[in-house]
């Protein structure tokens, strides 16, 4: 059993603090994804867990051991690096077996484990090749193989797919998911790609500027973002945000149009309150072309500025209250620019955020 416990962990380079006392409990066998924009401290946090960065404050526990002062080799973790970090002067077999040989395992055990990992990852045919003779996807698999041969307590992945093309990224994403299902080890995975976070994670940790903004399952984070940052970071295209004021129990948009306050939030608003109405593109659809019925909808006539057909759906650029918003149209329907359509806003799935704090009224 080896979960990971991060308690009030801080990282500072001189006077510059990049991680501000974060707390996170990762359960045994859990797949946790740290996600956030560049410079949010996610990779630094991962490197502190690995022991590649000193911890400026707080504690990191792996299983029952406080590892703050342990070097990487004593933490029984494996790491897959963004650039794979395969040893170029060794073939795949030696790359896979390197950690075991360093640990003093017998050649027989090394061979067994290397063959086992190669079997899991489909590398058996490539064992005698050097990294230079492998494709990007194969290198990535070797890097994962090197991580699993040692049967570590936890796998750490540092943006492992960011160097692959879009198609290969999709394939490797599925392989990582399958691998986790096979080996059932605790995983901490860092990415800036919210699609990877949504598809891989048991729980997502959204970070910004060295703080954790929200921790939750992918659907919790997607459906119940705690603030506008999470709302716009998770989900593609991002959530539309419209500044507004509460007026006579309705949301008064900048152009004077009124939209009903979502029913679940009525008790949490008050007259004159500055808010931001958040609504995802999937929840603004031309009538009859949405994903499904909505419990609570309001119709609004909008003029199409631009339509991007994507096959079974189209992304529509329009504007509400003078602000550009994105909407979705599902099903076969060709839309022309400057066409005016009646759109339905699914208000039961809309959000209101406090304009001053950017916090969701759902959590206030």
């Amino acid at each position, binding site marked *: 059993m080896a979960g990971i416990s991060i308690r009030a962990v801080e990282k500072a380079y001189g006077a510059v603090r990049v991680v501000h006392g974060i707390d996170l409990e990762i359960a045994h066998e859990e797949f946790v994804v740290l996600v956030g924009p560049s410079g949010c401290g996610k990779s630094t946090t991962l490197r502190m867990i690995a022991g590649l960065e000193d911890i400026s404050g707080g504690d990191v526990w792996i299983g029952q051991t406080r590892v703050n002062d342990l*070097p990487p080799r004593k933490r029984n973790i494996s790491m897959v*690096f963004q*650039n794979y970090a395969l040893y170029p002067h060794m073939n795949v077999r030696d790359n896979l077996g390197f950690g075991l040989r360093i640990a003093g395992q017998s050649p027989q055990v090394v061979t067994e484990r290397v063959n086992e990992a190669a079997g899991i990852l489909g590398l058996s045919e490539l064992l005698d090749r050097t990294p*230079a003779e*492998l494709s990007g996807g194969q*290198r990535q698999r070797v890097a994962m193989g*090197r991580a699993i041969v040692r049967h570590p307590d936890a796998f750490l992945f540092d943006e492992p797919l960011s160097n692959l093309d879009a198609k290969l990224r999709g394939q490797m994403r599925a392989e990582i998911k399958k691998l986790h299902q096979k080996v059932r080890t605790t995983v901490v995975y860092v990415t800036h790609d919210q699609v990877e976070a949504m598809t891989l994670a048991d729980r997502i940790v959204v970070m910004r500027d060295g703080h954790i903004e929200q921790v939750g399952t992918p659907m919790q984070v997607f459906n119940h973002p705690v603030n506008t940052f999470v709302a716009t970071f998770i989900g593609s295209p991002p959530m539309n945000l419209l500044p507004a004021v509460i007026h006579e129990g309705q949301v008064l948009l900048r152009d004077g149009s009124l939209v009903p306050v979502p029913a679940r939030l009525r008790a949490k608003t008050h007259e004159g309150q500055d808010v931001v109405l958040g609504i995802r593109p999937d929840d603004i659809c031309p009538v009859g072309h949405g994903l499904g019925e909505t419990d609570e909808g309001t119709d609004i006539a909008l003029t199409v500025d631009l339509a991007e057909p994507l096959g079974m759906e189209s992304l529509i650029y329009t504007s509400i209250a003078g602000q550009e918003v994105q909407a979705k149209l599902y099903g076969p329907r060709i839309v022309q620019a400057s066409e005016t359509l009646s759109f339905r806003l699914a208000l039961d799935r809309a959000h209101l955020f406090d304009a001053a704090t950017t916090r969701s009224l759902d959590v206030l």
Partner: protein
Amino acid sequence: MSRTAIPVRTADRPLPRPPLKKRAQAFGLWLLTFLLMVIMCVPGLWVVLSAFRPNREILAKPPIWVPETLTLNNFAKIFGIGQDQVAIPVLAYFSNSLIIALTSTVIALIIGMSGGYAFARYRFRFKGGIFLGLMLFRAVPGIALSLPIFMVWSRLGLIDAKLGLIIVYISLNVPFTIWLIDGFFRQIPMSLSEAAQVDGCTRWQAFWKIEFPLARSGIAAAGVFAFLTSWNEYALASQLTRSTDSKTLPVGLMDFTAQFTIDWAGMCAMAVIIIVPALIMTFLVQKHLIAGLTFGGVKG
């Protein structure tokens, strides 16, 4: 209506020749390269050729361009074989050169590796200033330091001692080896060493098992350059050496000059003896200088 014929390239039709201007440019470039190579190589070739010719042919006027006789007598003479002997202790000079060049190279490499690794991998105070200082030190011509070195060495009793020359060559070579090796370590991604540490290595093991083998070509190149600098150096060696205990081959060349004569043939033969190890070293390192060893281990 006029029609323009579009040239169609078929499998059996050869590619059209490049236009005249391009061919003229290519020829011009070839000629320039050839001339430069001639300027660089002819003096060396002349020395090698002279080493195998008798003195009268070397000094003939007008010069004899194509050798009429080739002989090994010049080598036999300086090694004391045969009837004509030149009283020059070539073997002693050779062993002095070898000891001084090898020792100073090995020490310069050890310091260069440590320094180069430190500059490439660690952050420390005054790093930029120290590096700049080292490079500036290398920019000072060695001969400019000869008088102060001579004075200090004479006080320390290091004149006419191999150790004296070894120290001088180490200090000449260290900035260069640090600079070159630093560059090679910088090319090796940090993540390789980090991966090795996560895989169970100590920092020291990660260095020897991963980073050192990858920087080996750079270290070998630095070693050869350091060796050649020490092997060929004349100016400082001529000041700091006196006897067969410490004189190196380049200084020994001056033994062929007498008050009224210069034994060009013997001198050229000894020059060949100096050139050969340098050439062998260069050929040996050529294989190590193939860059791109790190390609493939990281993203690509």
